[in-house]
């Protein structure tokens, strides 16, 4: 639709770009250039950065190291539905299992899915988005069409269908969420590559006789990274939310219940065990919030030009 005035899809893309705004007004940066270093420095000078990172580190530690110190998540060793107390910090569930141990274990699935999906999306996004933006042609067509496809078949629906047909486990969920979410990252890489391609230093690299792929790899992609990192960070949050929704709906991996799955069983005990529904949801919320705040703050630091105009 290049001949039309901005199509809705383009306007939407522009609006989303404004949210994860690429550095439009920022001077071109060379790899390791002064400007970029100072942008990162600004990010790491903010105290809030350490708060978010600290929260995330704490949640990761609690989920992966914590279970070694907590009780057995599957032993029905206690009375059923004991409220939180000094001895059992999060009480027990409807079968008399230590709920703290279950919540800690639940974090493993949620965090693993979130990070794996984000890494896969970033990889796919960099490769396909970079090729699409830099060379156009086939990669560009694939990107546009696939992005369109997932605009009409939402991730959640496709995941539900696949879970129904193939059964759900962590790998299936990670693959499906990555397949549905990569276009968001790729679109940003594409826009950035197209912008950077016009810049003087790419031209001089061309004039110096470097091969196109080498220019893409060592000049274009490194300079496209800031908005990509922001988008990848946000993907972690979105993936955790969709995974938790899936396992809440009962299509997650039943062997290792994630936070969403815990909420699924908690809903039957809203009157008798409020803590069952409170804590897993709080964990999801805290992790996703920290990730999103980190992404927002990163975005602000890397795009100093996007401020409030008054």
């Amino acid at each position, binding site marked *: 639709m290049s001949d039309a005035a901005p199509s809705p899809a383009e306007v*939407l893309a*522009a609006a989303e770009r404004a949210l994860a705004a690429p550095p439009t007004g920022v001077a071109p940066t060379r790899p390791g250039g002064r400007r970029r270093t100072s942008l990162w420095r600004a990010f790491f000078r903010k105290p809030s950065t350490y708060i978010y990172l600290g929260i995330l580190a704490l949640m990761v530690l609690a989920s992966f190291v914590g279970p070694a110190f907590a009780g057995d998540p599957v032993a029905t060793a206690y009375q059923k539905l004991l409220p939180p107390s000094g001895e059992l910090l999060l009480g027990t569930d409807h079968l008399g299992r230590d709920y703290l141990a279950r919540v800690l274990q639940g974090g493993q699935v949620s965090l693993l899915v979130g990070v794996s999906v984000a890494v896969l999306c970033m990889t796919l996004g960099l490769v396909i988005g970079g090729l699409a933006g830099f060379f156009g042609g086939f990669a560009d067509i694939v990107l546009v069409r696939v992005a369109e496809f997932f605009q*009409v078949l939402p991730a959640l629906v496709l995941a539900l*269908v696949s879970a129904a047909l193939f059964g759900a486990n962590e790998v299936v969920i990670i693959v499906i969420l990555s397949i549905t979410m990569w276009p968001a990252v790729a679109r940003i890489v594409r826009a950035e590559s197209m912008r950077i391609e016009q810049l003087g230093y790419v031209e001089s690299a061309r004039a110096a006789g470097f091969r196109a792929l080498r220019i893409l790899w060592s000049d274009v992609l490194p300079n496209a990274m800031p908005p990509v990192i922001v988008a990848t960070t946000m993907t972690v949050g979105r993936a955790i939310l969709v995974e938790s929704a899936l396992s*809440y709906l*009962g299509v997650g991996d039943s062997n290792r219940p994630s936070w969403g799955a815990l909420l699924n069983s908690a809903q039957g005990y809203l009157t008798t065990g409020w803590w069952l529904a*409170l804590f897993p949801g709080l964990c999801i919320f805290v992790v996703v919030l920290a990730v999103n705040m980190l992404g927002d703050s990163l975005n602000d630091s890397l795009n100093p030009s996007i401020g409030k105009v008054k």
Partner: protein
Amino acid sequence: MRAALWHYGKLLLSSLVLFLVVLTVLFFLLQLAPGDPVDSLIGDNPVSDEFRAQVMAAYGLDRPLGEQYVIYILNVFQGNLGLSFGTSQSVSELILGRIGNTLAIALPAFVISTIGGLVIGAIAARTRSKLLDGGISGAAVALFSVPNFWLGILLIMLFSVTLHWLPTQGKAPYGQEGIYLQYLILPVITMASTELAYKARIMRSSMIEALGQDFVDTARSKGISRRDVLWRHAVPNALLPMVTVSGYSLGFALAGSVVVEKVFGWPGMGLLMIDAINRNNNQVVLGVAIVITLSVIVINILTDVVYGIVDPRLRARFSGKGRTA
């Protein structure tokens, strides 16, 4: 006028192609599913041989793959989404019976989140109070990060379990028909909240962008009052992205309704899908997925039409009087 016909003709065609692609993907997912194709259609549930034969015939499962594919596509275009196992009810009828209930929560949520997002986003962009802007933006990020279903569960715990103000489940008191308002409140709020946060964020950023444009300065320098500049110049321009965002988000809201319906036991399309997944009733699962996809496509077309009406540049182009870009 011809430009408009051309534009919408192309749009309809590409939407049709997109729909065909989705159907194709679903068809091949069904083929890839492990086990006997009949089993993957009817689930591993005991069914009569008669029903098995009926399914085989309806989908031509004894015929070559290409032929099966054509039959599948033609069936969908005739509104035939297959039969639900066990009851042998038509999937289309099952979905038609539920779709009204889904719309009953999706549409009010759409209206509330759009108006709310507009107003709140505009206020955040306009205000000189850092506290207010920061507060709104912070609340939006928080709302954005809450799992939708957990928010619903919290609302149930507060308003239903603790305060006893509102019912927890369903759409009407036991044994009653129709939809009761007090049953509608919590699902609509739950569904509207995330959307509202998203729309407020978009509105804020597009409003800030509009306020920074040259035409705002021009209008101001012509002596137009602050308020008129805001409402007549900045807001209309900031609204354009909102049209698109709202349209697209309505489609996604339909997918999100699956989760909300599960939280509140709301008997819509989404709950139908979840029940079908639990019973391995794949025909119903695919049917709902197809209906959601089709709704998203139709909504996207409508969004494009509305956009053409709202955007003066497109309007001018379509009437043939505009500058040719």
